[in-house]
């Protein structure tokens, strides 16, 4: 046997061990105390990373010194939590994923109160309710409109943001003609979450807070003349007339925020949470970037913006410290500065609205909240939507199809896509609506 070689291999193995083992050791053992510890699981990895969660927790502990809060922030949150909720290990307080069916809420989380009582004090009480009981408190409230760079629009001759699809497309064309190197409408095709914001315009453009409840039983909601057809048609037309980024398939969300702040993008369809982030990119952006209603008017000629819950906080059924967990949720919506820090509308009705939303209201835009689904139909929209597999408000797939058709990546016509969506929707309605 060759000892030299064997030694060399040992050396290699030792090197291997040394590289990794220098840090290996047992983690310190926990200390015992009377403190209650709760785990709070959420999707905001950015706040975990930059220490913001620690600051919130410190603030919380000023009034609740006996509750220790451990924060877990997860990438790929919805998928991960969905898998974890098959066990009892999903923390004490967590953001309730949308994949949970309303009728299953009581199986996973604690009831937090009655809708008719809580809605006097808070927004978004219909988001996570079942049979009049609230199971999740919104972490903050978002408006569903568009983020516009008014400097770009002004240069193209539009001092105020267009209010109709026709003037909107005309404005985009004017931007393209007059301003070189500016993308009139940026789709954010690749980031996924951005495109589903087009679906969130439904209630705003109809001015009908009950529209979703009607839509879930409606046949052909994407047919010409129906609001969603008009919304999608704007996206399609903008793509067809080359008023969007040159290569949507490689669009970059980080890049788009910077470009918009740099006056290189006219408008993006995004929830109001995005406003703060883009404004933060530059000093001029603070002034130029504004939040606007989607460029469509309701039948009465007025413009509306719907507001709805962001992720909602819920308390796990399996929590061993339910009281502490509920105290944390209560503190989060009533006392914490979370909504304010994110430029969002606070869940608490009595709290101050962000400036951007106030000016929207002052400009005469109506603010709408969805009407709760009728009793027993709380999860109907969800069921129809899952069944149809078109991902209305939940995924980007069909919106990407529309963009692809518009820019010419595929040969489907707009009408054909709408027909396909109608067909799938109708089939799901037939199955789910008795």
């Amino acid at each position, binding site marked *: 046997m060759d000892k030299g070689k064997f030694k060399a291999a040992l050396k290699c193995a030792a090197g291997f061990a040394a590289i990794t083992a220098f840090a290996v050791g047992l983690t310190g053992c926990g200390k015992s105390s009377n403190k209650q510890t709760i785990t709070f699981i959420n999707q905001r990895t950015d706040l975990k990373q930059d220490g913001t969660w620690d600051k919130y927790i410190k603030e919380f502990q000023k009034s609740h010194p006996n509750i220790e809060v451990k924060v877990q922030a997860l990438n790929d949150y919805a998928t991960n939590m*969905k898998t974890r909720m098959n066990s009892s290990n999903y923390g004490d307080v967590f953001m309730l994923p949308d*994949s949970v*069916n309303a009728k299953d809420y009581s199986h996973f989380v604690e009831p937090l109160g009655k809708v008719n009582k809580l809605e006097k004090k808070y927004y978004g009480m219909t988001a996570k309710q079942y049979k009049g009981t609230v199971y999740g408190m919104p972490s903050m409230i978002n408006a569903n409109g568009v983020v516009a760079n008014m400097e770009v629009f002004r240069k193209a001759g539009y001092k105020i943001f267009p209010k109709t699809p026709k003037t909107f497309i005309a404005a985009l064309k004017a931007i393209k003609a007059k301003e070189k190197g500016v993308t009139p409408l940026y789709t954010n095709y*690749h980031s996924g979450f951005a495109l589903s914001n087009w679906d969130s315009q439904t209630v705003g453009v109809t001015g009908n807070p009950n529209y979703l409840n009607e839509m879930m039983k409606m046949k052909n909601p994407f047919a010409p003349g129906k609001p969603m057809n008009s919304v999608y048609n704007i996206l399609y037309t903008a793509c067809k007339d080359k008023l969007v980024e040159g*290569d949507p*398939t*490689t669009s970059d969300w980080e890049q788009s925020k910077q470009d918009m702040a740099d006056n290189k993008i006219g408008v993006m369809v995004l929830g109001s949470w995005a406003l703060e982030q883009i404004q933060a990119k530059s000093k001029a952006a603070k002034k130029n970037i504004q939040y606007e209603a989607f460029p469509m008017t309701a039948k009465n000629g007025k413009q509306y913006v719907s507001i709805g819950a962001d992720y909602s906080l819920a308390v796990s059924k399996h929590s061993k410290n339910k009281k502490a967990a509920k105290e944390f949720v209560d503190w989060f919506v009533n006392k914490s500065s979370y909504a304010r820090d994110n430029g969002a509308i606070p869940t608490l009705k009595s709290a101050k609205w962000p400036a951007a939303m106030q000016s929207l209201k002052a400009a005469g835009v109506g603010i709408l909240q969805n009407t709760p689904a009728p009793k027993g139909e709380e999860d109907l929209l969800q069921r129809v939507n*899952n069944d149809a597999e078109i991902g209305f408000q939940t995924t980007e797939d069909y919106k990407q199809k529309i963009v*692809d058709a518009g820019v010419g*990546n595929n040969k489907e016509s707009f009408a054909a896509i709408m027909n396909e969506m109608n067909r799938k929707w109708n089939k799901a309605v037939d199955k789910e609506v008795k």
Partner: protein
Amino acid sequence: MQSAIEKFKTNYRLQRRIIVVLFTIVPVALLLVFSYLPLVKMIQYSFTDWDGISANSHFVGLQNYKTVLTNPQYIQVFKVSLYYFAVAILQLALAMLLAVVLSYKVKFPNLWKGLVFFPYLVNGVAIGFIFLYFYKQNGTLDTILNFFHLDSWIKLWLGNRSTNNWAIAMTSLWRYTGYNFLLFFGAIQSVDPEIYEAADMDGANKWQQFRYIMFPAIREIFLVNVILSVSGCLSAFDTPYIMTNGANGTSTFVIQTINTAFKFNKLGLASAMAIVLLIIIIIVTVIQRLATREKD
């Protein structure tokens, strides 16, 4: 006591039995628990309408399988696998060529080997990002083409449907060629160098050396890699998932399965899709094995 040990030492039949049981039980147990038990559970789910999270679900019989097999929407994505298959052949050939070239005398052998292998070290999510920059409009690739005055070749690599699946499959080649290379290279090295020397003296040329010495030595690992490539093409997932998420005609069967399970909350249906995929892969593998066996 002493004699018992002595007895054991010479009782080779007993030893053989103990070794066979002792040496195989742990890997087999681990395999059964972590690879096959999930499979059994998945088969169970595939007969239900479970959404993946709810406390209750209903038995639906073969309904999910019927949906998968009769709805062309689910099956047609398999044609995307053909792109991956074409590129996988290229990848195995390239890895083999590199392994052979670097097995012979060459200057700076470690440098070349390091360079060939190193893409495999790069973290997956970063690769999605790097190649988005590589293929985007005015990105890395376009810059290079401009430099060589090949502007007319420029396309929207990921936008254009005639190139996007090739572009993604080539990313996969970039990432995994080093992996195949290392397996082949390692296997070639297991051959006694004296055999080559002898062959050299007998006047065998390099091709003959490859054909009669190298190839037989790496045959097993090569076949395993071919089988894995074919099954890998059918279940291609990670590279398109991080690059396009299946948009614009780049969706594969596994991406569709994941979407069905997590975006549309149909875990029962998704399980049926996974089982169908597994059955297809098994059929293809069996055909492959039979085909390679006949040639011998």
